[in-house]
């Protein structure tokens, strides 16, 4: 029987040191992109409401790809990590692993109240209380949950800066 060793939540503190480094700014203009921005979506222990809204955004009712984004299933293909949920202590390891698998230039975006500061699930015995516990959160999309349209607008805004 194989056993998989896992790291603890604290290793995240290191992993997120570069999380707030932004993408290159082009003075407010929409950057000309040669390829769409790859989005990897990760749920880390919320009610799943935000995750499901991002999934809806990635469905057929919204023009995510026309707006210059594509959801990817491998973190190695991702430019931005869209994080939903309150970051449980157990999920911190997963977050760390996914973040490390992303290529340089990666960005982290908190989607929804949970991902920012835990929302209805602030820090407790099982939760860290959102990304705020790990790193200054500069890219956040508020709401509980935000609507897909709101998420899309916010992503477009973030792509501009």
């Amino acid at each position: 029987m194989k056993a998989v060793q896992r790291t603890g939540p604290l290793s995240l503190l290191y992993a997120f040191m570069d999380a707030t480094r932004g993408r290159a700014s082009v003075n407010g203009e929409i950057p000309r992109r040669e390829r769409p921005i790859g989005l990897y979506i990760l749920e880390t222990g919320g009610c799943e409401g935000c995750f499901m809204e991002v999934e809806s955004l990635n469905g057929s009712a919204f023009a995510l790809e026309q707006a210059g984004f594509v959801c990817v299933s491998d973190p190695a293909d991702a430019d931005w990590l869209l994080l939903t949920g309150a970051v449980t202590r157990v999920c911190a390891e997963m977050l760390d692993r996914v973040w490390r698998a992303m290529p340089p230039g990666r960005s982290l975006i908190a989607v929804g109240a949970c991902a920012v500061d835990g929302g209805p699930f602030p820090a407790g015995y099982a939760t860290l209380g959102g990304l705020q516990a790990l790193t200054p959160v500069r890219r956040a999309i508020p709401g509980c949950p935000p609507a897909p349209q709101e998420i899309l607008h916010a992503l477009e805004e973030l792509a501009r800066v």
Partner: protein
Amino acid sequence: MMGMGRIIRSGERVALSHYHLDAEQWSAMLSAPGATLPLISCWADDARAYVLLLEGDRPLLTSTAVEERRYLAPSSRFAGAEWGERVAYDLYGVEAMDAHGNGASALDEGGWTSTWPLSSRPGPAAGGLRPLAGSHLLRPEQTGLSGPLELSFEVRKGKVRSVEVCAGGAHRGVVSRLLGRTPEEAMPLVSRMTAGGFVAHPLAFARAVAQARGLVPGPGIRDVWMVLLEIERMSLHLFDMARTARGVDAELLATHCDHAREAIARACAEQGVSRRLMDMVTCDGFRDGLEIVPLAQAVHAVMQPRLAALEELHRVFASRLDGFAVLDVRLAERFAVGGVSGRASGRSMDMRRREAGMRLEALRATGSSQGDARAREGLRLAEIRDSLKLLERILGSIGLEDDEPAPDRTDEGIGVAEGARGDVWYWVRLKDGRIESLHVRDPGVSLLPVLGAMLRGYPISRVPAALGSIGISPAGIAL
């Protein structure tokens, strides 16, 4: 020789459907001759161990004292009790004696700030995360579910033989956050228990609280609750249908489901309520200003015209789901699997049927009872049709009186709501108006013991598609 139900009733009645048993009665109940009543849920805290059973379509709750952190395991009789016993150990450190199963952690994967965090005597933190057992893993981000659920498999010749589930990644300590609050203070959090039940969870909670307070919601409130629940049912069925369709590359069907779900959300928003009906249910009714008639009409108007196309596309793609991830009816009965998964296998339990004021004539959905993904998908569609009919019936006779007697106030209540993904149950005990004890049973829990059988024989790569068609919320399971 007394059967199970009679043994339970020989105990001390402490609430409408709750009987205390002493250790001897508890043991007799677990070895009672005759039929085993279906188990809805099992849980324990520092003081007592509980099993919630179904007798016909009525809940029957029984409990016994936990002595020296131990109790005789309900899983010695009820196979589905194992999950609750494991959760009770993780949260309270109380041990089920003679338990069935391997006793692996359900929630505590290490990494918490203490062991047995809800116990009156918590233990020290375990440190880092425990290594995961099992020869093959599906990482929490790889399951295709909306939340983190760790699945480990025993595999032979590339095919799944058995499955172990650990839900620690999704555990947020919800129960500990609710204890000591008034039901009104608790409601916002209950309303975020899981997006798989933004209406069903608060509704089951409100019903439990009403029973504890000796109240019966009037017919007007009851009808509003029914309308909200049916709108949620349609929306979530469409979500699960889209996922299932994508799992078999039926993109066109998924597209139609996406658009229909979004149309419902927009209709809700245009009527001034939240897109997914969050925060609509309150302990004593519904949010101020909610205009239920125009809301029901608006949702009906956007959904009804879309149904024919969905049915046509389902016919086109359904064969791709034939025989996929089958739930056998005997397992569904044994583990009281409800919702679409249970009914599509032939277990015809729908808790809406026992509700006072239900327009039963609208609930017609029948279909294949093959128990496979095709049957589930077909049933979801049929239930959307029923939901629309139910909206019509309710609009035609909204708030009509009937006389449902109020229960005595016992400060204890059980509430159930038949959500889109199955029957959601709450048990609550109040003390001085605050929540002294609480249990939540999301329908996903009843699926855990049957997952292995449903996934057996498939390569792990097919597991996400199977899980999508079953419709599970890790947030609801883990809390």
